[in-house]
């Protein structure tokens, strides 16, 4: 059974007269423990797809099975629970909360799921991403690479089976990007299913498989 399976996914945006088919009948299946790169030119629908996979957005048509369960019928609270415990999402622009320390940022998902040992787990997650010594810095006191590490720590702190990352290295220099990529590879080796969006052929080449998207359609999936 696939960890993630989508069938005939469609998402259309209307801006006045203009109709944009952001996703135009996408079928993808990703196995448990896989590490997949989604590539394609800008505006091809990668982010739209990732948002739907991350249960942040809903498709107009098509089906999405997460570990065999149809996500379409789930309530808002159930979806929030999935985002909290089963999927970790990493954004291109980090999306850390200002005025909260690195530790507090990483703690947040645990607080929403009501875990008692939030502090220790958050600290462990920060050590995992190599930031054990920066726990009390606020985001604006950290470099881009460090912020993305905090974001990764936040994504893994609830121990989700799936990590989704939308251009996680897009705002980083090449070297820092490679460090972050190594982090994702380590997470994958530890058994997590990782899907990341990237422009970078180098980055894509390090993944186990690639899914190419153009104009809302899957070109090839190998």
């Amino acid at each position, binding site marked *: 059974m696939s960890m993630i399976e989508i069938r005939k996914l469609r998402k259309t945006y209307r801006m006045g007269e203009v109709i944009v088919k952001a996703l135009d009948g996408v079928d993808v299946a990703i196995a448990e423990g896989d590490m997949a790169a989604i590539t394609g030119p800008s505006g091809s629908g990668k982010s739209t797809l990732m948002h739907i996979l991350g249960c*942040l957005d809903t498709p107009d048509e098509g089906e999405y099975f997460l570990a065999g369960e149809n996500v379409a019928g789930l309530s808002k609270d159930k979806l929030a629970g999935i985002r909290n415990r089963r999927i970790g999402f990493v954004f291109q622009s980090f*999306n850390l909360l200002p005025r909260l320390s690195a530790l507090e940022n990483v703690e947040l998902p645990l607080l929403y799921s009501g875990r008692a040992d939030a502090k220790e787990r958050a600290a462990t997650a920060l050590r995992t991403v190599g930031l054990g010594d920066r726990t009390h810095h606020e985001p604006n006191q950290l470099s881009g690479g460090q912020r993305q590490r905090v974001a990764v720590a936040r994504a893994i702190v609830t121990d989700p089976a799936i990590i989704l990352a939308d251009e996680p290295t897009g705002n980083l220099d090449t070297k820092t990007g490679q460090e972050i990529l190594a982090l994702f590879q380590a997470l994958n080796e530890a058994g997590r299913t990782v899907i990341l969006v990237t422009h970078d052929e180098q980055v894509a080449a390090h993944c186990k498989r690639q899914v190419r998207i153009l104009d809302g359609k899957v070109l090839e999936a190998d």
Partner: protein
Amino acid sequence: MLFWTIFKVSIKSLIANKLRSFLAMLGIIIGVAAVISMLALGTGAQQQIMDRFTAMGTNLLVVRPGGQRRGGVRSGSRQTLKLEDAAAIVEKIAGVDAVAPLVQGRAQVKYFNENVNTSLIGASGTYLPIRNFTVGKGRSFSEVEEERSARVALLGSATAETLFHDQNPVGEVIHVGAVSFHVIGVLKSKGDQGWFNPDDMVIIPYTTAMKRILGQDYLGEIDVQAAAGQDMTKMAEEVASLLRVRHRLRQADEDDFNVRNQAEMLEMVSSNTQTFTILLAGIASISLVVGGIGIMNIMLVTVTERTREIGVRKAIGARDRDILGQFLLEAVLVSALGGLLGIGLGYGVTRLVERFTEYIPIVQAYAVFLSIAVSCSVGVVFGFLPARRAARLDPIVALRYE
């Protein structure tokens, strides 16, 4: 704990936007201060009125000649109350402790060069305990002196002060009109009561006043003191029907006297001031609503500003109710803090009023708790709309918000 984290985030964002938070609170601060000071003023005024009534004597019926007031004019004769009426009241009505027949007038009182125009009370010795007067110096008059129409006088403390200054008046001779009197006592001061000053008067036996000074055979008033625990309303009715019989009034005739029940008056006046207090506080609380709207306004701005934060929180698993709770808490925090500052300000206002006017405002604990409760509720009520707007944001729309 989630609550604590949210609390910290709220506090931080309040501190980060100090001026804006303060402006949001301002309405609440002013509203609560107004309610606190209005309630304190009202309660203080009520207490003062109660004190006055207590000073005049409780368990008291006051019978006066003339019917009930009708359109501002007293109906009936003014010469209907007789000494025998007073005697009959003690004799016939159960539960009466004492009566004081009295006549009133004004008189020119002289002691050598000192000269004062004051109110003259002709009364029996029972008048003093009934009206809660106590003799400070000297003594009250005896029954024998009453019977003999003796020329003895008691002075109110203010009158004594005017006529005698530091000298002891007891034993001196004064003139009331053309008649000379021995001063046998001076009353203790009761303090100015606002509409009259009980310390400014001369009391002489009613017999003396009626025969020698005023030349009248009717009374100006009969004070009736009931024993403790009497039903004053019932006693007032009994007094009225006794007097109707004595005055030979027919069924259709109106009373030619009126009986005032101090307890009822007290209740009426105190319920009037209470109503007035509530009215004032009600008007003041309108500013609380205005304050609430201020909070709503600021919270709406805050929610818009923090749309992206809301998106992030939802992306990592915050449910709608988590977001709702967070913004409600922030609104309540603002309004509760405003409420506390308002209580401080209101208290300050009452201190100033106490210092610079003759009112003595009383800040009651219930008013403080009420203010805290009300300002928190204002936060909940007016924070709800912005908080719900935040909670209902679509995660992806919120994340895309620039």
